Structures are given as C-alpha cells and as structure tokens.
C-alpha cells in the first residue's frame, strides 16, 4: 500500500471529537474535531496559545480533557490510556532527554520501554540514528550536544517504538536548515510508510513543504481544515498592505475589499497587479507619505488573514501564562 501525504488510506488512527479543555477561565481547546489517517501528515497550525500543545498532551494521555472523545486505533484513549500508548510516539515541545546519558543510552532506554530488545533494538537504534543524522553522535552525552543536535535526539526517542501515530510538537524549534531538512524528510518518509503524523508548528512554510492536511487553530477553535492547496485556493486571496506616515488617506476604490487599521490599509484581491495599479492611480500626493508596501501572496498566511482578519503572527500571545 502506498500513501500520499494528504492521504486518505484506511480508517483514522486518530479520531478526536468535541475536545474541550480549560485552565481556569482560559479556554485552551473549545470543542475541536481532528482526524488523522495512516500515511497522513496533519499539521496543527496556529499562533502561540492556539492550543496545539494542549491537544498533543491530551492525545498522549498527559492531560485530561474536560469533554470530548479521543480514539486511537479505534480504542478509547481516555478510558484505556495504557492500551493505546504502544501506538503513540510523542516528541513534546520542550526537549526532553537524559542529559548525562549518551545518545545511544537514551535511545536504548526508550526502545526498551517500547518493548524491543537485543538485535532488534540495535537495528532500530541504527536506523533511527541514520535517518536523523545521529550516527557520529551516538556515544556523546546529550549535555554536550548543540540545541539542534539535541532536538534530533529528542525526535529520535519518539520514533523508537515505531509508533503508528506520531505526535510532533514544534519539532523544528531551534533547528538549523540541515536539521530542519532532516526532520522534514523523516516526517515525509514515515508518512510514506503509513505512519499518521500530527505535526504542530507555527511556521507556515514547513506545512506547505510537507503538503500536509492542515488544521488551522486559533484560540482553541478549528477555524479551517483541509489540504494546503485546497485551503489556499478556497480562502487564500492575495493582499496588499500599505503603511503610511500619519493617518491613512481616504481611498475610494470600487470593487476592492479594503480595511483600515490606524496607519495601515489592507486590500484583499484576487489580482495583485491590477489592485496595485489602481491604488497608485488614486494615491496622488499621499504617495509621499507611503512608508511601506507589503505583498501577501496566496498562501496559508493569507488564509489565516482571510479567516481571522489578523495578520498571522506566530508570537501573538506573548503574555500567556503557564507552560506552552
């Protein structure tokens, strides 16, 4: 059997419905439904505080939800967490490795916990190390690794049990191009082999390169979901953003959707060139006060803009409380 990333093959390995979780007054998840099928990369996308980590933590059995159901491999994961654990591999947002132990010792331990041993374990360590470029690091204590190297070990740990459902919470944080490429390649390869991957991130370009099924989260709500191209085609109009010194001029441009925010004018349009031409035609003397001109191409970013009315800002919720 082969799988394309957006893939639809088989019954969902993960089926979440009506998931709710609040911390005090703070709603982290507001009744969300998410599915992941074998071979599918599901990208949980959203700014800080959107609820990505809360989602992964609940699925992995670390946090109890207030309401909703979580089925993993058809089994109720909330009722029978221990029966579904062998199916799940989790790489949490915070890098977690035994600092004083070597890379190999870390992988050995988590392999043993996953029930593999002997020659199988050694083979598994070699395979995982090879795919995450850890071969030369295997006898180094983790505390001597760079942040990106440690991040690769962190992800390798999650792969040791050959999970059918892989939960990766911002795997590329702090990773350089090399590490990032390796991580994305591994994800693509695992999906090709039939693993369902739930990949949370706030970097839009990664999702585009993974060709994932996107679940766009905002303040605990799913605001859109679908394959990248489909979302972009459906919601991703291009936009022009003009920023002025002082108050924005009163442009009247018939047929264009214009929003004004302080010193900013945003024009959403299917035809960038035409819109730009018309704007400059009517700007007149105000053109002198034009400080910047931004073009937002149809992309997940413009999808987010179209659906929330806000520019996508990964670091949006700066004053959040508690761990993320």
């Amino acid at each position, binding site marked *: 059997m082969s799988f394309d990333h957006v893939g639809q093959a088989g019954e969902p390995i993960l089926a979440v419905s009506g998931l709710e979780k609040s911390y005090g007054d703070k709603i982290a998840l507001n009744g969300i439904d998410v599915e992941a099928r074998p071979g599918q990369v599901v990208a949980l996308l959203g700014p800080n505080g959107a609820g990505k980590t809360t989602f992964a*933590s609940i699925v*992995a*059995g*670390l*946090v*109890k939800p207030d309401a909703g159901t979580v089925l993993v491999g058809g089994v109720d994961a909330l009722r029978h967490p*221990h029966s579904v*654990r*062998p199916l*799940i591999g*989790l790489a*949490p947002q*915070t*890098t*977690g*490795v*035994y*600092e*004083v*132990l070597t890379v190999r*010792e870390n992988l050995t*331990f*988590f392999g*043993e*916990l*996953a*029930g593999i*041993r002997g020659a199988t374990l050694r083979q598994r360590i070699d395979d995982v190390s090879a795919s995450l470029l850890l071969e030369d690091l295997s006898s180094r*204590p983790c505390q001597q690794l760079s942040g990106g190297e440690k991040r690769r070990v962190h992800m390798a*740990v999650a792969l040791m*049990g050959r999970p059918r459902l892989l939960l990766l919470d911002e795997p590329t944080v702090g990773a350089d191009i090399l590490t990032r490429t390796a991580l994305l390649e591994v994800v693509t390869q695992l999906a090709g082999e039939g693993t369902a991957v739930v990949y949370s991130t706030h970097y839009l370009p990664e999702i585009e390169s993974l060709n994932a099924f996107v679940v766009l989260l905002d303040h605990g709500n799913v605001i859109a979901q679908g394959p990248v191209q489909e979302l972009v085609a459906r919601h991703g109009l291009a936009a022009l953003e003009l920023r002025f010194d002082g108050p924005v001029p009163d442009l009247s441009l018939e047929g264009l959707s214009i929003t004004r925010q302080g010193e900013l004018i945003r024009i959403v349009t299917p035809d960038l060139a035409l819109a730009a031409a018309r704007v400059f035609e009517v700007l007149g003397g105000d053109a002198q006060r034009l400080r910047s001109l931004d073009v937002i191409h149809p992309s997940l970013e413009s999808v987010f803009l179209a659906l929330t009315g806000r520019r996508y800002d990964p670091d949006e919720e700066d004053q959040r409380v508690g*761990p993320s």
Partner: protein
Amino acid sequence: MSVRRSVAITRNEVRVLRRDPSPLIFVLAVPILVTYILRDGIGAILQVQGYHGVSGADFAVPAEAVTFIFFIPAFIGFSFFREHGWATWDRLRASSATSSEILIGKVLPMCILGVIQLGVVFLVGVGLGLHVRGSTVGVALVAASLVLCVGTLGLATIAVFKTMGQVNAFGNVGSVALAGLGGALMPLAVLPGWVHRIAPATPQYWAMRGFNSLILDGDRLRAALLPAGVLTAFAAGFTLIALWRLRFSDTKRSWA
C-alpha cells in the same frame, strides 16, 4: 505489570547514577569513616552507662548506618525531580510504562542501595569491633523494615514536596535532626529528658532501639518484633501519604 519495563527503568537509573556516583560513595563511606572516628569516644560513654565488655562500634555501627540511610529518601526525590528538570518526566509518562512500573523501577534500586549500605557498614563494622550478642535474624528483621521505611519515605517525599530545594533541605538537614532526636547520633541516655519524650516519634528511634537491644543487650528475636513492627507502621503511613498526595501530573521544580 511488566517486570521488564521496571527493570529497564532501574537500569536507566543505574546508568544515570554511574555518571555521578558520589551519593553512593557518601552513604557507604561516610558512616564507616564516622564510626571509625567516634568508636572510642562512644565506647567510653557506654562504659559510663554501665555496659562492660562492649566496643564503641556496637553502638556506632548501627547508629551511623541508621543516620546515613535516611539520606536515601532525598536520593529518591532527586531521581524523580531530575526527570522534571530534564523534561523526561512527560516522556516517561507517555511511554508504555505504567505508574507502578515507574515507581518500582525508580524506588527499588534505592532500596537495594539501602540493603547494600546496611550490609557493607555492618560487615566493615565487624572489622571495627562490632559484635552482635543477640539474634542476628532479629538484626536482619529490623534492617529489612528500616529499608522499607526509608523507601516509602522516599515516595512520601516526592508526593509532598514541590521543589528540589525542599527535598534537599528535608532529606539532608532533616535527616540529621531526626537522627539526633532519635538517638542515632548519641545514645539517648546522655540526651535531655524532652528528647526522650519525642524520640519515639522518629523512625530512627525504633531502628536504634531494635539494634541496641539485639547488639548491646544481647536480646533474642522477640526483641526485634516491636521495633520492626513500628518501622513497618511508619512505612504504611508514608505509603498512605504517597497514595493521598502523589500525582504524576504534578509539576515539580528541579534546581533550575
């Protein structure tokens, strides 16, 4: 319950301890060293108390073993809190290991360390003049219930405390204080009356009471029953505290 997973966790603990074995050396070597230093002085005190033909080691060996074995609960605390510092705790929880497998895997090696500590200190103690006049089986019985008490106190420690600093303070300063109150630093007979009144509230007192009657007074196995029973009751109490307060989802603060 998978024994294999607990064993894997124990093995991992041992790997971590191997990177910094100083705590192990500490609980093994220091009691022997202190026994060696205090032996003659304590011998003199025993003479004044009316013991004849006994060696200072007869008190000092069990006393130092008891004092220092109570550092193990802090080691148990470190072994759990360290996981929070390394952010491996959630990974462990998300693994196939159940809560009881994790507890057994982490606490058992520390109990084994307790057994080794008592064994080594008593054996070396024989070389320093220790002579058990009463029941050896009784000594083993008190020792076993002491280890149980220490292991479960470790569980209560991780259940109750929230930071590594608290574990450290309670485990180190606290255990020296309790050793003093329980008559494991100095024979109770030379301590003030108010200490006598509160001493029975400490597990150290019961351990010393058992060892003293079996080693110094030459009592038979029967004399071990009450102290071993009380130590086991302490263990039950600590287990209850752990059952009541221990939440795997609690966040603990490591040193950082």
